[in-house]
């Protein structure tokens, strides 16, 4: 059973549009929620992360929205660019076992020029 459920599986957005990827979880012991970006042939790289005491975090064109009561968090990519085309993974870490990260199944984003 997947601890972090991610949707959609794939996403096509026009250049300049907003890309939105959603994740949901059940385990209230999660205390850290990172998003990783992976380009073909490369390993995932940390994009942005949030802790549950904050409802929103913004870094440039990338924003995480966090809804603790709904146990959902999402990544918004504003003004999406072709260079953003990659696979995005959300993840969650257990607060009592810092070694355990649970990853979503990934979203393949294609930004069309």
């Amino acid at each position, binding site marked *: 059973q997947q601890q972090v459920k*991610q949707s959609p599986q794939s996403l096509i957005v026009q250049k300049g549009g907003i890309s939105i990827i959603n994740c949901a979880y059940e385990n209230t012991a999660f205390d850290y929620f*990172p998003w990783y970006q992976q380009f073909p042939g490369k*390993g*995932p*790289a940390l994009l942005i*992360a949030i802790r549950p005491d904050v409802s929103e975090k913004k870094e440039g064109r990338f924003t995480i929205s966090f809804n603790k009561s709904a146990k959902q968090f999402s990544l918004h990519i504003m003004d999406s660019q072709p260079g953003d085309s990659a696979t995005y*993974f959300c993840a969650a870490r257990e607060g009592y076992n810092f*070694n355990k990260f649970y990853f979503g*199944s990934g979203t393949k984003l294609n930004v069309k020029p």
Partner: protein
Amino acid sequence: DVKVTQSSRYLVKRTGEKVFLECVQDMDHENMFWYRQDPGLGLRLIYFSYDVKMKEKGDIPEGYSVSREKKERFSLILESASTNQTSMYLCASRLARNTGELFFGEGSRLTVL
């Protein structure tokens, strides 16, 4: 910049062969991880090492073992490869237990025939 190097990018092995996957990090990180990445399943933790000679099983350790004799090097061993171990294997490192960011290598794609 942190560099995590997986020396074998592509391997083809036969069922029953012993397989070694090597990972080296150059930033004196305490923690190292081996993940398996499969389409639709995200990343799943195989093994984790929090220090030299110290290891913990992850979520899917069956059929795998690990070795960490030096701080910078973490090896994944498949004692007798099977076709269901065909996958992308990702090594990651982390500075210390209380830091969040994982730094990933570029992956080793293993095909078992």
